[in-house]
């Protein structure tokens, strides 16, 4: 009889893992809390570094699960996750009970709630938006202010909720710098008359082709990069956003009036992941993501045998890394089931 694996979370990692497990001949149930799978991918319009349409990746992942007969259960929330001897039992809030021989937790990340950086005024000032809000505008092909006007001067704030002791997140979310560069280029593509200013602490261009994209943003698209943290944003009577910044290269404070301010929200352990941690006692790290068994050769393993991690529930990752991590998790599951 085929072994059964439950994958919790239907984002990039969960879809990739479920599809690959099924390819291995295992019976797979994929649990997703939302109505549809895809997670954050559904909200992003184009992806860095090549600005490909995100639906291409989504279609690939959906294809992987559909073709391979993954049992997909959406609108499902895990209420209880227990291990007894070699078997896992998952109870859902909808009253379903599922048994499994192994579990992959792929609960992903939540975007940092930008309203927690009170000084930026997200949720208060009309023209302060997040990177996710801007993706919605890209998809609509309509970058406008709340008043319906085409913005001329747009600011982008890096590290919102990342590398920030004040909000309790000391880690780098890794993706915000390159997202800012990608979005700055897309703004300039759609609004050639606009000026874009990126306020950064450090440009962390560690991924493949990131540095090239950064160079392109400056040389081809004329994006302005200002090294300094925005200390506060405020609103003028005509709904412009005034930012105060310390320009650390010029060595002086800077005040600028913008039509729109975009906050590069960082990544945090998802609420779903936190609940799984609470109900299982799985260890979480200082960054509140799941603590993996070994950072070098056990990044899919947890402290419960037979329960594995895939993707950004363990740390910030891009899509490429997430897919690789999910494949590695599959390899760990297969190895584990062979032994058991």
């Amino acid at each position, binding site marked *: 009889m085929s072994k059964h694996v439950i994958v919790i979370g239907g984002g990039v990692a969960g879809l990739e893992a479920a599809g690959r497990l099924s390819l291995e001949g295992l019976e797979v149930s994929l649990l997703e809390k939302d109505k549809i799978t895809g997670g954050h991918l559904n909200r992003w319009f184009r992806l860095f570094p090549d600005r490909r349409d995100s639906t291409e990746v989504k279609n690939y992942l959906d294809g992987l699960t559909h073709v391979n007969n993954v049992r997909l259960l959406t609108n499902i929330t895990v209420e209880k996750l227990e291990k007894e001897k070699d078997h896992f039992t998952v109870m859902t809030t909808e009253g379903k009970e599922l048994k499994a021989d192994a579990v992959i937790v792929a609960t992903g990340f939540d975007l940092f709630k930008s309203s927690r950086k*009170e000084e930026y*005024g*997200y949720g*208060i000032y009309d023209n302060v938006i997040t990177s996710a809000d801007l993706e919605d505008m890209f998809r609509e092909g309509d970058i406008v202010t709340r008043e319906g006007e085409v913005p001329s001067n747009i600011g982008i704030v890096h590290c919102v909720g990342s590398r920030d002791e004040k909000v309790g997140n000391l880690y780098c979310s890794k993706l915000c710098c390159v997202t800012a560069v990608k979005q700055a280029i897309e703004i300039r593509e759609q609004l050639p008359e606009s000026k874009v200013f990126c306020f950064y602490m450090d440009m962390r261009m560690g991924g493949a082709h990131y540095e090239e994209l950064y160079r392109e943003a400056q040389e081809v698209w004329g994006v302005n990069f200002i090294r300094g943290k925005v200390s506060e944003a*405020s609103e003028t*009577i005509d709904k412009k956003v005034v930012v105060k910044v310390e320009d650390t290269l010029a060595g002086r404070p800077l005040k600028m009036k913008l039509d729109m301010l975009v906050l590069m929200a960082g990544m945090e352990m998802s609420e779903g992941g936190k609940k799984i941690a609470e109900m299982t006692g799985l260890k979480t790290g200082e960054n509140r993501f799941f603590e993996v068994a070994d950072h070098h050769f056990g990044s899919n393993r947890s402290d419960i045998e037979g329960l594995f991690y895939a993707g950004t529930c363990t740390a910030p990752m891009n899509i490429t890394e997430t897919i690789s991590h999910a494949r590695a998790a599959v390899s760990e599951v297969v190895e584990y089931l062979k032994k058991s």
Partner: protein
Amino acid sequence: MKQEGKIAIWREYQKEIADDKYFYVRSCIRQNFFPGSEVTFLRILRDVLKKDVFEHPCHTTCSGIGYHGDVVPVETAMTVVARQFALMTEAGYTNYVPSCITSFGLYTEIIDTWHHFPEVEEKVRQKLKEATGREFNIPSNLAHASDIIYKFRKEISARAKYKLINHDTGEPLRVVDHIGCHYSKMFPSKGVGGAEYPYVLAGMIEEWGGEVVDYPERRHCCGFGFRQYLVQANRGFSVACSKEKFESMKPFKPDMIITNCPGCPMFLDRWQYVINEMEGTRYGLNGEGIPVFTYEEVAGLVLGFDPWDLGLQMHQTDCEPVLKKIGIEYSPEDKYKTGVKTFSQNQPALANV
């Protein structure tokens, strides 16, 4: 501007404020700057709200003005503060209420320091005992005097003779709230509403009928900034800071400014006169200045106290246009009944004549 965003933040920053039996400590400078304010606080608390408020004759400066002016070391400030707490303890009180924002900030900072470094607290206790023979308890509740008025804003509203409403049009007055830097910028959780969008004065304004003005330089320093003014060579910077704020708030056409710090009303009030003298600029409506009030003065006006008992004649920027706008009944002839007139009648309308 989305008010619901601010309301969500305000919910996060609620603080416990004692409801009676206050050990009240005055400011070093407020009695000179706005001499009616502290006595108005006592009048409201004791006579209107029937609260127990105790003042100790041996209370001294907290030394915060020297600490923030870089002339008093923190260990000295701590020992002075320990003595104030000893006075409270000896008097049998536990709820400490400073009138001064900088005192409130210093007390908050010292209590927090002692919490994290108990060995420092122990050393201060020893030094105080050696020097004065006194011992002290840390207050069970520390609230700034504006927190107290905020707490009782609804009770004051229930007894209101006037509201912050234009008597002729029925429109709410547009009110700028300016919060002293040492209120919550250092310890956001210790201020009503936090540091970025403090609610302590906004709550009074809303409750008493006014409309809060949020403008780009709302968080900016009033211009006092201690060394900006205390060091004479820096005073140009002090007035420039105030000017920055006035320029920023002017498009919103505020009727008045309300403050909760000793220095802020002083500088926002006096520098308007100075800027007018220097370059002929006035920031208020109808070519006038923007009247600047302490929260006690505004509470007193709402309760129907005589404006001259509140000390409004001591303001440099004339308050009378706002009194008339609210429809407050007062006697212009009594304006200087307790003092000597210092300005000529020919001064511009900005000046309080």
